[in-house]
Each structure stands twice: as structure tokens, then as C-alpha cells.
């Protein structure tokens, strides 16, 4: 049984990753699991300088999921390279760094810093965070803007580039094609869906930011649909995510066309989720006599 998958020349021991922003740089969850069990750790978004993020409340529960408006709080690339990368290097897993920025120059600055770090296998470019006013999603909601930022990042990146797409668009296939045309090596989707919650007793927004990104099992059907549409539109590999709670969910994404998957909000619900997904995929492969996990990619019957 072979659980390996390859994305842009980088081979992962299995197709299970952590979704950026739900797993820090792995330190907190290393208390619960052996990070070496994971196909990859995708870090929390890192910018060129420290970002303070949004005011609280930053999180709220909704039916079958949650809203967050953290606002990409992060310690900046210098601390990240000194502290987080050496920590992750101790584990036998692939390191993918999520990069955020307000301007093209911000993204490029981080990408250039990371180019000097051979332990970083891939970059994931966050052009889809709905919770910051500048940059981020502004690059991810128009095909020409996405094309531009992808092209610029690719020009400076030493590692393969994954563009993380927003679901808050009219046509995900058009966005996927724009990123591919600009040279993206892979796509990841979906980021959170913009949502809102109002406390009727206080007549107040549940989040200080008013809107937040929705994640959790309730968004999974939207995510599976978008992964399917994106996979149909492009040839580059896709990392699927959105509400994955168990191996069955993960396999759904693979069948829809994802080469790998990420576990996000469900890490908060069960800190052992990632490892349980890895083990569940193996059991499914045994049960259905699947020799290579790659046989599942896009294998839904049309």
C-alpha cells in the first residue's frame, strides 16, 4: 500500500496536511501527536513584520462550524525563521509555509527570506483571508489581480508555489485557471467562507470584526464542489480542504480531484483528527484494495 503523493516534485508520505491558521507552527499540537505522522505541516500565515491581528471577540461558534476573524496575527518572518522553522525541522514531515501580505512587496519580501531556507519545501500564498482590510483577499477575488500576484511571487520564489484560493468568488474555475496561467505549481482551496453572526439578546455582532471566515463541517459540501470544479479546470495539483472531520471526508475530496487534503477547524474539536484521518485512509485503502492513494485522485465516477 502506497500512501505517498507528489505535488510539484515534492513527495509527501501521505496526503494529509494541516490547514494554515489552525495549527500554529505545530508546537501546540505536538503535545497531542507525533508531527512525523503528517504528510505536511502548513504553518499559520507569516508576514514580513509582526501583525497584531483584530480585536476580540475573534471567534464564534455557528451551527456545525465556527467563524473566525483573527486577522492574521503573526510574529513576522524573522521570529518565524529563528523559532518555528528549527522546531519543525526536528520532525520528519514536509514544511509548507503560508505567506501573507498587504502589498505585493510584502509577499515578495517574505518569499525572498524563505528562499534561503532549504527546510521549507513549498510556499502557500494566502490571497484569500477575508479578515484583513488590505491585501490578502483583494488579490484573491479578481482573476487579473490573482494572476499578477502569482506571477510576481513565482518570479522570486525558490520553492514551488501553492496559491490558496477564496471561495468568495463567482467562478472558482476562472480563478484556478488564472493562477495556473501565471505559473502556480498547485492550488489549495477552500479558504473560509465569509459569514456573520448576530447576538439577538445584545443586538450586537458576535465578532468585533463583524464578519468572519466560516469553517467546519457545515462548509464541506461547498468545498467539495469547488475542488471538483477547480480540478476540472486545471492540470496542476489541488490541495482540498473545508470541514474535513474524518477519513471519509478526506477521501471525498480526493475523489473530487484533490491530490492532498488539509484538516482545519476540526483540529480544535479533536486534536487527534489529522492522525485519525491518516489511519482512516489506510483502512479504506485496505478495505477497497487500493494500492496507491493516487488511484483515488479524481476517481469519482462521472
Amino acid at each position, binding site marked *: 500500500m502506497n500512501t505517498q503523493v507528489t505535488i510539484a516534485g515534492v513527495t509527501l508520505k501521505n496526503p494529509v496536511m494541516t490547514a494554515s491558521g489552525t495549527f*500554529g507552527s505545530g508546537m*501546540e499540537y505536538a503535545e*497531542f501527536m507525533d508531527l512525523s505522522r503528517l504528510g505536511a505541516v502548513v504553518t499559520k500565515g507569516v508576514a514580513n513584520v509582526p501583525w*497584531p491581528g483584530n480585536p*476580540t471577540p475573534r471567534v464564534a461558534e455557528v451551527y*456545525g462550524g465556527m467563524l473566525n476573524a483573527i486577522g492574521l496575527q503573526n*510574529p*513576522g518572518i524573522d521570529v518565524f525563521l529563528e523559532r518555528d522553522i528549527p522546531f519543525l525541522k526536528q520532525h520528519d514531515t514536509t514544511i509548507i509555509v503560508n505567506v501573507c501580505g498587504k502589498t505585493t512587496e510584502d509577499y515578495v519580501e517574505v518569499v525572498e527570506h524563505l528562499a534561503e531556507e532549504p527546510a521549507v519545501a513549498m510556499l502557500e500564498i494566502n490571497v484569500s483571508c477575508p479578515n484583513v482590510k488590505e491585501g490578502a483577499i483583494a488579490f484573491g477575488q479578481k482573476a487579473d489581480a490573482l494572476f499578477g500576484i502569482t506571477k510576481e511571487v513565482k518570479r522570486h520564489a525558490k520553492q514551488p508555489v501553492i496559491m490558496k484560493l477564496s471561495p468568495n468568488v463567482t467562478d472558482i474555475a476562472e480563478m484556478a485557471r488564472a493562477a495556473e496561467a501565471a505559473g502556480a505549481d498547485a492550488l489549495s482551496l477552500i479558504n473560509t467562507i465569509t459569514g456573520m453572526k448576530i447576538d439577538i439578546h445584545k443586538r450586537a455582532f458576535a465578532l468585533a470584526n463583524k464578519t468572519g471566515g466560516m469553517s467546519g463541517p457545515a462548509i464541506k459540501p461547498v468545498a467539495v464542489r469547488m475542488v471538483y470544479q477547480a480540478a476540472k479546470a486545471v492540470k496542476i495539483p489541488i490541495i482540498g480542504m473545508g470541514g474535513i472531520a474524518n477519513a471519509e471526508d478526506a477521501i471525498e475530496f480526493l475523489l473530487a480531484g484533490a491530490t492532498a487534503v488539509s484538516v482545519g477547524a476540526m483540529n*480544535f*474539536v479533536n486534536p487527534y483528527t489529522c492522525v485519525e484521518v491518516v489511519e482512516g485512509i489506510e483502512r479504506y485503502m485496505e478495505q477497497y484494495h487500493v494500492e496507491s492513494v493516487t488511484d483515488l485522485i479524481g476517481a469519482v465516477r462521472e
Partner: protein
Amino acid sequence: MKQKHTAKVLSQQEIALAIYDMWIETPLAADARPGQFVGIYPKDKSTLLPRPISICETDAARGALRIVYRIAGAGTREFSGYREGDAISLLGNLGNGFPLEQGCGKRAFLMGGGIGVPPILELAKRLEARKDIIAGYRDANLFLGEDLAKYGTLHIATEDGSAGTKGNVMDAVRENGLEADIIYACGPMPMLRAIKAYAGERDIPAYLSLEEHMACGVGACLGCVVKTKEIDHHSHVHNARICTDGPVFEAKEVEI
């Protein structure tokens, strides 16, 4: 070592209106410290996130810990229906807890307001100090008073004056002419702000247990931050994580 596991409910009763008192058999009891909390997961899958609930008391001999909580929504309503022998899903032990050594041998205020009263009990049990325990409630719907009185001098304040001093915990301090060298407190934000101001005027340390909406409970999601005076060692911005760097902070460290 933090862990998520399934534990067993030993007992549960409603001790005041909508206030529930549950004992849980769990190995987490062995090293739980006062001021720490557990995350409790509802079984209803529409409610996903762990509910942060403070540890009220531990009984290492029985391997049990006690939580006293108020029904605040769907999750806590579900917990309130648990009976002896039911399974309960826990994540713990979370947070730093109250520093005991700082108060050793001193005159200490142990202040709890509303559903901030429960963590004061284990603190009162373990803190070796001259303890004035000041518990504030909305009305005569009191709870934990008898337990608290065993470990120090208990003063009650109620907003409507139906028991003890009319007013809040600070009013009880003034009315009884109390003095302290150190303060420990848990309660609503206006109470904690008043204590921070009082401690600042007298230049005494005050350890405040803060509350915020949380998702992961283990420091990964950065949902539950508090503004800090200095740049935080972990975040490298003026934010500390209440779930892991707290929930207890020295009042001078935080902007509340």
C-alpha cells in the same frame, strides 16, 4: 501533558438557579492546579468547540475534579443534563493557574464574581495565607458560600443587597475595612477593571483570571487574546493568549 479523553460523571446537582455542580472522575485531577480550566466537548455535533470551564475543586484521592458552571448556551445546557455514570469528553488541564507562592504567608484577597466564584474554591484550599474571601453575586441566588467559608473569612456582596454588602466585591472590601498585600480574582470584566485600579493605587500585585471566547483552548488558533503592556514573548505583538499564557495575568501586564 495535555490530553483529550472521555471521563465519567460521578455526580451532578443544581446548586442555585441555572448553576450546576458536577464531579468528574478523571486522571486530570492528579495535577490540576487552581485557576486552570478544562475544555468540555458537547456531544451534539452541531456544537463543535470545547467549552472552557474553570476547575472548582480537585480531590486527588478520588481522582476527581469538580466544575461549577452556569447554563450559558446550548453546550452547557447539554452538560446540565448529564447524570452519574454518563461519559464526558474533556480536554485538559489548560492554562497557567494562580501563582500560589507569591501569596504565601501574606494577607490575601480571594475575589470571585458570579460564575468567577468557582475557581476561587480550590485556590482558597491550597493558598497558605491570611485569606479574606470576597464573593460577589447578582442576588441571593448564592452558591459555594459554605465551601469557601471553610478556608478563610468569607464576605458576601450582592448587587441587589439581598445578602451581605449591597454592591460589588469592592464595596464589601470598603464596608468591612479589609486590607491585603496581594489579590487573586476571577469574575466579569468590570469587576476585574476595578480590582486592577485598586491594586494599582495601593501598588500591590493582583492576579486576574480572564475570560474570552476560545476555539482551540491550546494556544494554536489565536482566538482568545488579551492586549498586553509589553510585547508578548510568544506572539511578538501586544497580545497574549488567554488559554495558554493565561488565563491568570498580573494586572499590570494586561490592558483590560
